[in-house]
């Protein structure tokens, strides 16, 4: 037994008188009570100084004791003064009372109970509290009640909420960026996957923690060895971070490009503690990059120079062909803008006109004089297209151009060659006509000394044939084409010459033409002229002998690829049984050769008392063009 301030020995007590003993007991009891009162005050002071609300609850759910904070809370929240012996239910919200009873049952069985609860305060603001309910035991260990400690946890919960919000945002950001987070445990040889990463790999069936081999198995076989080596290298070489791109094959067979960034964490001894990683699906980015690279490759492959200029006239892009053509790189640092450097001064007015079109959103195509890096003048065939901004204003210009300087030079040479050819051909026709003049002169001279009329006529016929040939050259000489002439015009002019030569007009012989325009090569015109001369000469000499007048009908008609040619007179007709191939003179036989061989045509000779008609048919495009 112990009585407060000092222990009493049994022997000393035995020696005390009854009164002294009573006095001593009274003194001890008073002192004990005093001591107890002091201890309770200390305890209350301690409890009151606590920031927590503390309430002792009896087995019957009644208040045994409480501190000041608890009383204040009860008053503030429930509007009641807390007092010993009150039912604790008075200080529990009705909707929580059932849970509280269950919690008490739990605690009175020796367990601890913990819960976070929120309430709306008088200002309708949410207040969070942490409730701890623990059993209270006596000296013998018997549960005699419970202690409920309540602590405001607004700041904690706010921090938790903020943390949760941040985590939600992070997850959303990761999801939208198609990123996942992982952690490689190099000691265990495992990889920890987060939900987003599992989704990224399409590996929903995977465990959140799986062996490294599982991850490597997901990597495309062509990238797998490289990635294994890179991972090993990361661990062995002590790098702090690394980044790699590789392909994965999802369980459904899809391929995806992944960019993985790893961060190595080490302890103070430099030993790797963990490796954190972020993996991102960059398939779309790779696809876009590949498309851009392909487009860039295409732009650099095309032979045409492609340049882009912004609205201020500054060059913003040019491809390899443009570099080759203009040499923009060499022009840099020369002060004036690159665009101005390639613009030839003589093209400025043209460029101003083009600019007006561009500002109206219209493209322009045509030839432009430009200058290259050496200041050499070039000619380009260009197409300039405006790039209109969203506001509808000119945001820039894209131009494509090809060097046509060589083409222009070749064109000039060709023009020159054509002119030379033209001059040469005209000179040739001129010389031919001069030579024909000499032949005519010789025939004429011979005719002057020839006394025999028959021979003089033959010389005259010859001269007429030469004039027929000369007329072809004359018409070709005058024509634009130099190798084709209008057969209708030629035969009509030749007819006039022959009428004059044989003085047919004086004899009132009429030559009527019914011809279609048809252009033939001189290879066709020349034999036609000779045939026409011979047949008309025969008509003039024989068809109208003894008559003062006569009519010759001359027609030329196109029938598909053929020409149908008729020369008819209204004379008395040929002698019966006349065969031109047998009985015809040399001139007529020559004519038949020209029809059948040179023109590869056919003829038909119809003769009656009403006249004679030569029908000749041949292909108008018998020969190929020569000049």
């Amino acid at each position, binding site marked *: 037994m112990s009585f407060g301030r000092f222990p009493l020995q049994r022997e000393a007590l035995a020696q005390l008188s009854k009164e002294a003993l009573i006095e001593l007991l009274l003194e001890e009891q008073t002192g004990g009570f005093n001591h107890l009162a002091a201890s309770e005050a200390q305890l209350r002071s301690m409890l009151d100084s606590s920031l927590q609300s503390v309430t002792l609850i009896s087995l019957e759910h009644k208040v045994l004791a409480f501190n000041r904070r608890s009383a204040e809370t009860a008053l503030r929240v429930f509007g009641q003064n807390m007092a010993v012996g009150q039912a604790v239910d008075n200080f529990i919200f009705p909707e929580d009372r059932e849970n509280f009873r269950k919690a008490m049952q739990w605690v009175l069985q020796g367990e601890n109970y913990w819960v976070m609860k929120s309430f709306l305060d008088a200002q309708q603001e949410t207040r969070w509290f942490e409730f701890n309910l623990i059993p209270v035991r006596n000296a013998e260990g018997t549960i005699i009640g419970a202690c409920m400690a309540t602590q405001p946890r607004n700041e904690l919960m706010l921090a938790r909420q903020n943390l949760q919000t941040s985590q939600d945002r992070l997850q959303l950001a990761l999801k939208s960026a198609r990123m996942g987070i992982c952690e490689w445990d190099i000691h265990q040889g495992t990889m920890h996957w987060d939900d987003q990463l599992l989704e990224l790999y399409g590996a929903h069936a995977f465990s959140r923690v799986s062996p490294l081999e599982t991850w490597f198995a997901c990597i495309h076989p062509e990238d797998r060895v490289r990635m294994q080596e890179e991972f090993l290298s990361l661990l062995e070489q002590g790098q702090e971070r690394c980044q790699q791109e590789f392909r994965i094959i999802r369980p459904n067979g899809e391929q995806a490009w992944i960019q993985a960034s790893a961060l190595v964490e080490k302890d103070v001894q430099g030993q790797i503690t963990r490796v954190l990683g972020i993996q991102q699906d960059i398939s779309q980015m790779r696809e876009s990059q590949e498309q851009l690279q392909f487009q860039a490759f295409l732009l650099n492959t095309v032979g045409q120079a492609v340049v882009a200029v912004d609205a201020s006239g500054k060059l913003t892009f040019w491809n390899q062909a443009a570099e080759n053509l203009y040499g923009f790189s060499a022009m840099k640092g020369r002060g004036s803008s690159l665009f101005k450097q390639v613009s030839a001064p003589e093209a400025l007015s043209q460029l101003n006109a083009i600019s007006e079109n561009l500002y109206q959103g219209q493209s322009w195509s045509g030839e432009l004089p430009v200058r290259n890096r050496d200041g050499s003048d070039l000619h380009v065939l260009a197409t300039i297209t405006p790039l209109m901004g969203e506001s509808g204003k000119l945001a820039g210009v894209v131009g494509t151009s090809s060097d046509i300087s060589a083409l222009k030079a070749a064109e000039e040479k060709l023009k020159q060659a054509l002119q030379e050819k033209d001059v040469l051909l*005209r000179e040739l026709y001129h010389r031919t006509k*001069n030579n024909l*003049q000499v032949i005519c002169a010789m025939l004429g001279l011979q005719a002057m000394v020839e006394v025999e009329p028959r021979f003089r006529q033959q010389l005259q016929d010859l001269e007429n044939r030469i004039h027929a040939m000369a007329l072809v050259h*004359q018409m070709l000489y005058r024509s634009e084409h130099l190798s084709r002439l209008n057969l209708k015009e030629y035969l009509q002019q030749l007819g006039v*010459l022959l009428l*004059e030569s044989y003085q047919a007009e004086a004899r009132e012989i009429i030559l009527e033409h019914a011809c279609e325009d048809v252009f033939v090569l001189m290879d066709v015109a020349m034999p036609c002229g000779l045939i026409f001369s011979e047949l008309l000469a025969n008509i003039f000499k024989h068809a109208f002998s003894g008559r003062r007048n006569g009519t010759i009908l001359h027609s030329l008609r196109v029938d598909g690829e053929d020409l149908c040619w008729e020369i008819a007179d209204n004379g008395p007709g040929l002698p019966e049984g006349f065969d031109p191939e047998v009985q015809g003179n040399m001139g007529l036989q020559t004519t038949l050769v020209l029809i059948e061989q040179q023109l590869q045509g056919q003829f038909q000779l119809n003769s009656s008392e009403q006249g004679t008609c030569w029908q000749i048919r041949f292909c108008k495009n018998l020969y190929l063009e020569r000049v």
Partner: protein
Amino acid sequence: MSESIPRIMVVEDEATTALFFSFILKKAGYIVCSKVSSGEEALKQLQHIEFPDLVVMDLGLAGKMDGVLTARSIREWGPVPLLFISGYDDEQTHARLQEFEKSVYLTKPVRPDLLLQKIQQLLLD
């Protein structure tokens, strides 16, 4: 034109053609007062002979002067009728001859009857 037989100068560098023209003209009753092959020779001749009534002038001549230049020089002496003859028959040639009034242009080969007809017309104008 005088009442006497017209005197004609032939300027032609092709000898056969010149001879042929001379024969035709003579046969038609004209006097061929001179037959030369170049412009320089024609101008030289004109200093020694009586001025002709008509000149038959080829355009392409031997020497440095062509028919047009020679004709211009001859026209400085007097308004003699000119009958130009050439194998050329293009617009440029026709344009060059526009300056010469009282002139006719024939293309080779020239038919004798046409030659005489044009000479007669020129002499009558």
